């Protein structure tokens, strides 16, 4: 009994130590990126192809994600709102849900899969084939050359892609609501504009900046510190997605609490939902 208790405590201790070490390693990695970012921006020759890869090539994924979320929200909300005879307010719930919550989270999740995993796999392959060491050997800084441009691309473009997903979702929700569910188009937009404030849009985009940076930091860190061989590359890509997803959910919760608290501190007279 005592031996089992010791074993359990040791196991828990080991997991906690591992978590603290990983968090510390990520924090150090993030600090090293920031340090380099403040001493020089990446060159256009290096940044342009990464912006293309992260931004332009993610558009179809984001378009599909946003489009389907908007339509699903219309279907789900319509069923509930119809009972209360509030179908005309579909525009409000679709727009609000998309800009403040589902748009940023689902776009970031899709991008963690498409962009983050690809980054982790690419950097991990470069590590196991000694290409990262070769960059050092040629007098260049691998973090500055490989990580900083990816970080910049994610921080700049993931909010833009999120805005794109939001817009596509709102329009697909509108199209489904008006064409299939026969909701009045004027009422859809009127309620959407009435209910959603600039703060909601800004809060959603702010979340996506944090999601974008966490995807870049986790993906690049996993790629840079992968184990050897093909197995190590595969594990880096998987770990990158899983950790990014957890980070997105945790950050979403923390930022929602923080932003809501800030909102009621700034506008104490606002009516709470």
């Amino acid at each position, binding site marked *: 009994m005592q031996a089992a208790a010791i074993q359990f405590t040791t196991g828990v201790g080991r997991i906690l130590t591992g978590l603290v070490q990983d968090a510390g390693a990520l924090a150090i990695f993030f600090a090293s990126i920031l340090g380099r970012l403040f001493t020089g921006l990446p060159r256009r020759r290096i940044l342009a192809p990464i912006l293309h890869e992260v931004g332009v090539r993610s558009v179809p994924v984001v378009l599909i994600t946003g489009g389907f979320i908007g339509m699903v929200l219309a279907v789900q909300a319509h069923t509930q709102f119809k009972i209360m005879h509030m179908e005309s307010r579909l525009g409000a719930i679709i727009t609000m849900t998309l800009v403040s919550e589902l748009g940023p989270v689902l776009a970031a999740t899709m991008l963690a899969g498409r962009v983050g995993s690809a980054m982790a796999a690419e950097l991990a*392959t*470069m590590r196991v*084939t*000694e*290409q990262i*060491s*070769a*960059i*050092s*050997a*040629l*007098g*260049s800084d691998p973090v500055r*050359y490989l990580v900083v441009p990816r970080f910049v691309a994610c921080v700049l473009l993931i909010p833009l892609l999120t805005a794109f997903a939001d817009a596509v979702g709102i329009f697909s929700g509108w199209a489904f609501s008006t064409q299939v569910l026969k909701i009045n188009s004027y009422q859809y937009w009127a309620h959407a504009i009435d209910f959603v404030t600039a703060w909601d849009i800004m809060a959603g985009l702010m979340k996506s900046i944090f999601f974008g940076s966490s995807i870049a930091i986790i993906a690049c860190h996993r790629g840079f510190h992968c184990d050897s061989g093909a197995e190590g590359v595969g594990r880096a890509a998987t770990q990158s997605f899983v950790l990014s997803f957890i980070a997105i959910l945790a950050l979403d919760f923390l930022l929602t609490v923080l932003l809501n608290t800030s909102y009621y501190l700034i506008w104490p007279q606002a009516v709470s939902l």
Partner: protein
Amino acid sequence: MSDATLTAAIQLEHIFCRFRYQEVLRDLNITIRRAESLAIIGESGCGKSVTMKIMMQLLHPTAGGVSWFGRDATQLSKRDWQATRLKFGYLFQGAALFDSLNIFENVAFGLQESGSFTDEQIHQIVMQRLDDVGLSSDVAEKHPSELSGGMQKRVGLARALALDPEVMFYDEPTTGLDPITSRRIDDLIDSVKHQHNVSSIVVTHDMRTVERVADRVVMLAPCHQLGPEDPQIIFEGSVDDLFNTTDPQISEFVNGGVLKSLGEAHTTQNHSAA
């Protein structure tokens, strides 16, 4: 400052290296003189490549000192450290060419990153280096995946030579190559040494390479095979001394390597005849 330090390109002093619980290097002392060729040999896992990476500070030892041209590498300012590092060239075991760049961009990488050359100068140097390693300008637009292993090694060598290094590191330069290509790579290493007057450090299993390119040889033993007080360097001397040694452990390794090389050469000759 001792004479050895003054004439040394690189000096390792009391180097210890450990990865988690695995001891890799134990109290290693190696000096590479200017314009000298040193071969580091030993069984797989004895720490040859780690030694070379520590020499170039691609890895940091657990304890011990590394000197570059008589100066402690860890005490150099960032600018001096980077300037000195550019005097080193490194040919990786698998060439380590950048997949996403073509051959021209691979060879030009160090020149572009240094920011000290115009586009015209870079073009001229890249073409000259490709020519030096026996590659035509036709390969410049190709990607690494379109080249054979031997050609990739040559591109890796051209890339390492682009910045006119004073010290060249070769990590298993002939591993995985047929004897004819191995011979060409050995000749290149030798011609680089004589044309550019560089110090060469060659990590290899191939005794023919040792015979062709080395002035001096250091043989390491894996730490797990050593007693608590045993030194890790089990041989240090000239190539002739290595091949004439009476130590059974060294002799077995050396003769095994020579026989393997001869066997590969024989097989290739048979294939050529067929």
